[in-house]
């Protein structure tokens, strides 16, 4: 375990012990602080270090993604402590970061395994908060976990900087005062994909959706439907598939006779690799329907998944939060720094996690306090640039980052083993913005209490 200076004090802010029962039971147990006006969870002011909690999947289907996230976090910590080449700290605008830790305190970190399960992720986050004294939690690679950990952090009074989470809910109806998301969401994917699909496939298309049967899948199906139907596309059917079905053939066979000419795969991770591989195997891409070439669309892409799908990804459209082949100054600085450290380019998950860590540290420097309420105040409405997605804003109303979205296509002729996605279009931020009170999206942030 990392050396800790401050004693973890548990969930103390709002806990008031009133009866003797608790006090008696507490004898010998670690000191239980009673809330005072200025205390907040795991205040690091008295020590010489500050601890961040990196909560990523280390086992299960997303273990590789989690490993990449962890690499990015370790890189970010290095940079914050003034080691290495500084990466995006040199390109971030505006920046209050000094390269001497956070508010002069050395940054340390603890890690944990979410197992991509809400329960495990919350247990891990709780350990970081209760035992290791983490002042911020970040990470994760699914929306279920993000929402679960975010609400936990709200209760604990600790800031949560979400990792990879794409569901609208994270900053929609499940938004939280203490939670911030840099990653984009299904609404933005839909808005960005719409025009590209229109220009590539026209207005007269019939779509067939295969949707992972859980919250994120529904969210994505809804967004893509909304934007494609606005183009004049028809939706032939939207079929729900069980999570982790493995073999999707029984859901693909009906597509053949359905009369649809576009298949939208609202799957992520292993499900996406499998369903895409199998759909291609069924010869869908060689088919002609309604006099048009049959097309497959995978709204959310990641390079790691593209790797798993191999050849099948070629030519397929999707959206992504960030890709290492971007040539702006910030992306280049990050790719260079990450590549030098690990020998390969970072994934979009790594990018998001790195940026989130820097943004959090920067907000503390700007606020001049570790107090989450002060940090939240800085982050809300924070405008920045030089982090790889152009001019970006953390919208105050829902804590969602608004920035350019990438529409990508599987690369037909990759020049290297990492060159899997080709950027087709960088959809400007203005086109993917939406109202924070949009129907089905509105939520309640809650309060910052400290």
């Amino acid at each position, binding site marked *: 375990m990392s050396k800790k200076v401050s004693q973890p004090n548990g969930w103390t802010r709002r806990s008031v012990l009133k009866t003797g029962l608790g006090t008696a039971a507490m004898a010998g147990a670690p000191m239980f602080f009673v809330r005072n006006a200025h205390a907040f969870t795991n205040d690091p002011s008295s020590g010489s270090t500050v601890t961040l909690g990196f909560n990523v999947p280390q086992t299960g289907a997303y273990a590789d993604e989690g490993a990449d996230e962890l690499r990015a976090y370790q890189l970010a910590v290095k940079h914050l402590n003034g080691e290495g080449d500084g990466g995006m700290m040199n390109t971030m605008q505006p920046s209050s970061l000094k390269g001497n830790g956070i508010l002069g305190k050395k940054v340390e970190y603890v890690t944990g395994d979410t197992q991509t399960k809400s329960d495990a992720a919350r*247990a891990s986050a709780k350990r970081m908060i209760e035992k290791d004294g983490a002042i911020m939690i970040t990470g994760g690679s699914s929306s279920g976990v993000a929402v679960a950990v975010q609400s936990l952090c709200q209760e604990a009074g600790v800031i949560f900087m979400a990792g990879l989470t794409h569901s609208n809910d994270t900053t929609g109806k499940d938004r939280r005062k203490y939670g911030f998301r840099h990653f984009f969401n299904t609404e933005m994917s839909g808005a960005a994909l719409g025009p590209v699909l229109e220009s590539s496939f026209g207005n007269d298309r019939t779509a067939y959706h295969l949707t992972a*049967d859980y919250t994120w899948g529904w969210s994505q199906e809804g967004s893509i439907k909304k934007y494609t139907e606005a183009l004049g596309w028809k939706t032939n059917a939207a079929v729900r598939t069980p999570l982790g079905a493995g073999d999707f053939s029984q859901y693909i066979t009906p597509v053949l006779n359905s009369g649809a000419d576009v298949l939208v795969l609202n799957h992520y991770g292993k499900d996406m690799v499998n369903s895409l591989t199998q759909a291609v195997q069924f010869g869908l891409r060689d088919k002609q329907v309604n006099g048009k070439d049959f097309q497959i669309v995978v709204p959310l892409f990641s390079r790691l998944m593209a790797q798993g799908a191999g050849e099948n990804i070629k030519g397929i459209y999707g959206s992504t939060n960030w890709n290492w082949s971007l040539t702006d100054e910030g992306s280049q600085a990050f790719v260079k720094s990450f590549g030098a450290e690990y020998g390969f380019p970072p994934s979009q998950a790594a990018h998001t996690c790195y940026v989130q860590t820097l943004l959090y540290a920067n907000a503390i420097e700007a606020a001049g306090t570790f107090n989450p309420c002060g940090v939240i105040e800085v982050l809300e409405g924070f405008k920045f640039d030089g982090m790889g997605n152009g001019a970006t804003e953390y919208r105050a109303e829902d804590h969602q980052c608004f920035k350019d979205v990438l529409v990508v296509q599987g690369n037909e002729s990759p020049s290297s083993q990492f060159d899997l996605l080709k950027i087709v279009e960088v959809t400007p931020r203005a086109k993917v913005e939406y109202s924070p009170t949009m129907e089905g999206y509105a939520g309640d942030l809650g309060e910052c209490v400290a």
Partner: protein
Amino acid sequence: MNFFKLSPRDALLMVVFAAVVLLAPIWMKPFGAAYPDLLQKFAIFGLFAIGFNILFGLTGYLSFGHAAFLGIGSYTTVWTFKLLSMNPIPAVIFGTLVAGLFAVLIGFVSLRRTGIYFSILTLAFAQMCYNLAYSVLTPITNGETGLRVLRDDPMLLDKALGVVQEGSPIGSFFGINMRGYPAFYFCAVILIIGFFISLRIFRSPFGLKLRAIKSNQNRMRYTGFNTRPYLLWAFVISGMYAGMAGSMLAVTDPLAGAERMQWTASGEVVLMTILGGVGTLIGPMLGAVLIKYFENIFSAFNESALHDMFSFLPSWLETVMVTVVHPFVGEGWHLTLGSLFMVIVIFLPGGLVEGATRLFKRRKSDGVTNKNSGSEN
């Protein structure tokens, strides 16, 4: 001494058990496990395993679907929070009862078969619960995101009594918030009660009959027993333990997710029980602690933490140690867990407790007749 009608030896066991549990925040410290969440998990999963053992350990019926009752307990508890009150007492009672109700239904059907056929029936029911909860039952379970208590939920009883909470809703035991150490002590008290009940069942004629069913069910029938209701009761009791454990998961952390019901979760309690010792009193508890400890502590060691740990060594040795240990911790914690299962079952047949008893016996052998069956420790 007649302490709750226990024999002196059992009374001592009970006192030691209670003391060990209640003092866990102190003696767990050197192991890095003395923080509320993990202690709560120890208590909760210990209770789950103790209950599971009443079915598996006593009757030999191996259920592969007990996680369903854990999940049902959790959902019921969160719904009780939402509809009635944030007080954990009604929540735990309802959670336990509803889980018991499901156990009656599932048990009634599954117990028509024995052996692996029984196991697969329970597995099938649990997987159906899980799959449906994750998808089409989302209006009730809130699917992937998990069921949570919201501030604008009715909470009729609380409203009627004028109990108001600030901030996000949290279980509240007459004013004591159910988080941190108070929540642990709440779980600990329930665990101790649960252990006491289990001890009484083990020592009762009912428990003896269950063990006889495990030993030779056919003979029991010719001895005049209708075994089906005995099995059903054992199933329901252990289902209620699971429901209660699920309830406490939701009390200490008001979020109920479907993955709690997945087969891996059912498998986990089976492993806990076998690891500690099937049919022993404290074995399941030990197994639960061990597995949860590995899951939460071993997974948290990263390379820099390892370097810190071995920093007292000369630097070349430090590097060697870190290289050797690293594959077994952090992202490799599963490797340690898998190896641990194998090592224990190979070298300590019967699990930790029985294995330890055997080792102990071998040391002081000399043919002293032990007057207790090995399964009573």
